[in-house]
C-alpha cells in the first residue's frame, strides 16, 4: 500500500517535471489562433469591421468579442473559411458593415486637383500613397488594397475608387458547371 502510494506520487512528480520543462522549452510565441484567423482575412485593412485593421479584428474574433461576419471585402468566402477554422456556424455577411464587391477597387488621385496636403498619405494603412507636402500625390496601384480610407480626409475630394482593370492575364477558363445546359442530370 505504502509502496504503491510512493510509486504513484514519484511518477506524478516526474511527469510534472517533464511537463514543466516542456512548457518552457516548447513555449509557443504569440497566439497561433490569431495568426490563423489573420491569414484568412483579406488584409484590406479597411476597418469596416470597426476594428483598426485585420489583425485587431482577428484578435477580437479569437477572444470571442466579435462575430465572423463583419468583413465585407472578404465576403462569404472568408466567412465560410473562418467558420471552418473555428468550427462555428456559417453566418450571412452583416450588411451594417458594408457590401461585398466582386471586382476589387483601386484608388486613383486626380493629380490636377490634388493640393498636396499629405492627409491621404497619413490615412493609408499600407503606405501605398506617394507624395510630399505641397507636392502632387499618387497611388501605387499595385499596393493599394482598395480600402477607401483615403477618401474622407481629402479636403478637395480628388480621389476616386475605380475597378481594377482586368487584363488578359486575369482571365480564367469558365467552369462547365456555370453553364447548366452543359450538364444533363439524371
Amino acid at each position, binding site marked *: 500500500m505504502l509502496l504503491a502510494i510512493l510509486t504513484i506520487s514519484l511518477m506524478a512528480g516526474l511527469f510534472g517535471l517533464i511537463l514543466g520543462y516542456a512548457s518552457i522549452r516548447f513555449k509557443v510565441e504569440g497566439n497561433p489562433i490569431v495568426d490563423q484567423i489573420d491569414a484568412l482575412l483579406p488584409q484590406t485593412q479597411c476597418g469596416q469591421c470597426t476594428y483598426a485593421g485585420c489583425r485587431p479584428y482577428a484578435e477580437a474574433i479569437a477572444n470571442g468579442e466579435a462575430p465572423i461576419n463583419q468583413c465585407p471585402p472578404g465576403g462569404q468566402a472568408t466567412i465560410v473559411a473562418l467558420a471552418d477554422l473555428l468550427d462555428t456556424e456559417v453566418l450571412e455577411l452583416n450588411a451594417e458593415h458594408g457590401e461585398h464587391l466582386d471586382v476589387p477597387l483601386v484608388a486613383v488621385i486626380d493629380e490636377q486637383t490634388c493640393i498636396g496636403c499629405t492627409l491621404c498619405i497619413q490615412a493609408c494603412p499600407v503606405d501605398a500613397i506617394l507624395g510630399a507636402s505641397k507636392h502632387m500625390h499618387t497611388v501605387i496601384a499595385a499596393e493599394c488594397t482598395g480600402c477607401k480610407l483615403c477618401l474622407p480626409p481629402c479636403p478637395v475630394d480628388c480621389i476616386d475608387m475605380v475597378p481594377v482593370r482586368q487584363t488578359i492575364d486575369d482571365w*480564367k477558363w469558365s467552369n462547365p458547371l456555370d453553364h447548366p445546359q452543359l450538364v*444533363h442530370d439524371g
Partner: protein
Amino acid sequence: MMVNLHHFHGGLVLDGHKSESLRRGLLQASLPQRLILPLRQHIGDYNKPLVKVGQRVLRGDIIAASSSLICAAVHASTSGIVSEIGQFPVAHPSGQADSCIVIDVDGDDKAAIADIVDPENLGPEELIQRISRAGIVGLGGAAFPTSPKLSRGKSHGVDTLIINGIECEPYITCDDMLMRNYAVDVIRGCGYLQKILAPRKTLIAIEDNKPEAISAMLQALAEHALENAEIVPVPTIYPAGGEKQLIQILTGQEVPYGKLAFDIGLLCQNVGTCAAITRALERNEPLISRIVTCTGDNVVEPGNWEVRLGTPVSHLLELAGGFRHGDDAYLVMGGPMMGFALSGANVPIVKSSNCILVMREETIPHSPGYHDECIRCGKCTEVCPARLLPQQLYWHARARAYERTQEYHLFDCIECGCCSAVCPSQIPLVQYYRAAKGEIRAAQKAQFKSDRARARFEFREHRLLLKKQQDEERRRLKREALQQKRKQAADSTAVPDLVQAALERVRERKKAEQEETR
C-alpha cells in the same frame, strides 16, 4: 548508337487527318494589307513599343522589346508605316483584346540593313545573345523564350539534347512541312544548339507517320556530319510530342514531380525553333514568319503556308479558298485536342500559331453541347499519359474542392484531352481542370497580394510606434533640459551661494599664501 525506345502510360491512336494539308507543297503567303503584331507573343513579360505611330519601319526592325529576362522581342515582319498602337483582339481563349502594334504594309518588303557575322566565329554566350535579339521562342506551341532556356540549360549542363519533330496532334502538319523543306536549316540549328550546350548526344525524334520528313532529315544529317546525333522514328501515339512523354519514350526517365527537364540533364527544342535559330544566326533574319497549317473539313483548299507574323487569320483563310460550307465556321487555333476556339478571323497569326483548324459546327471535335453523368468506367485513367486519376480530379474539381485536386496533382495535367476524348459520357474533363487551375492560380495571386498588404500594414504600425517612441524620447530630453536650466537659473539667483563662493575663494587664496611663506 541505337536508342531503346520506351513507352509512356496511356495515350491514344487518333485519326491523323494529315494528308489533306500535305497534298500541296509549302506555299508562300502573300503580304496582307496590314499586320497586327501583339506586344507579347510569348510566355513572360510584356514588351514595350519602341516605335511611334507614323514611323516607317523596315522588315526585321525591332519594334517592341523589354529589359526583362523572360521575354522575346517583336520585329516588323515587313516594311511599312506604324498606323496604330492599341488594343486589338488576339488569339487567346478569352477572346479579349491585348496591346498590339499595327503596321500598314507598303508592299516593298524592304529589309533593314543587317550585320552578318559568321556564326562559326561566335562563342556560346554571343550565340545566345543573337538568338535573344532575334526574338526566338519555342515554336512547338508553348512559346517560351528560347534564349533564357538555353542559358539555363547551359548552366545546368545538358547530357541529352532532344529535338522534337513529333507533331502528334491530328490535322497539324507544319513541322512535317518544315522538315521536308528546311531539313538543312533544322540540322544546322541542332549544330548551333550543340555548340551552345555541348550535350553528350542529340536525339531528333520524329513520328513514324512522317516518312518523307524522316528521309529528308536523314539526308540532311548525312550531308552535315553532326556529331553524336541520331534521328529516332517514334511510334505514332498521341501525345508523344508532349515534352515529358517524349522524354519518357527516349530515355525511359520520368521528369520528377515539381521538377523540369533540366534537372535530369535534358533539354528539348522544337524543330521549328532549330530552323529559326539557323536563319537568325546565318542570315540575320529575326523571327518574322512561321509555317502555319490551315486545314479542316470546312476549308476549300487545305495546305501549309509560310506566313508573316501579324497576318490576320482572315487573310490566310482567303488564301485557302474560304469556307466550304457557307459563311459560318468554327475556327480553332492549334489542333483538335489542345487548341482553342477563336473569337473571330480578325486575330493575327503569332509566334505560337501552328495551325488554323476550320470546322463545321456539327463536326467540332470533342465539344458536345452537354454531358451526361460519370459512370465510373475508368477509361480516362487508362489513357492519361501523366498517370493521373482524371475521375477523382473531376469529382473534386466539380465540387470545387481545389485543395483536393492539388493533392491529386492537378498541375501535372498537360491538358492533352485524352480523357475527354474517351469519356463515354462526353464530359469535358479538361474544361473542369482548366477552370480549377484558374481558380487556384487566382487564389494564389490574391493570397500573395494580401500577404504583401499584411507586411506593409505591420511595417507601418512598427514605423508609427517607432516614431511615437522617438517623439516621446525627444520630449523627455527637452523636458529634462528645461528642468536643468530652471534649476541653474534658480541657483544663480540665490545670493547666499555667491557670498559663500567668494568666501571660499578668499579662504583658498590665504591657504596658498600660507604655504608659500612656509
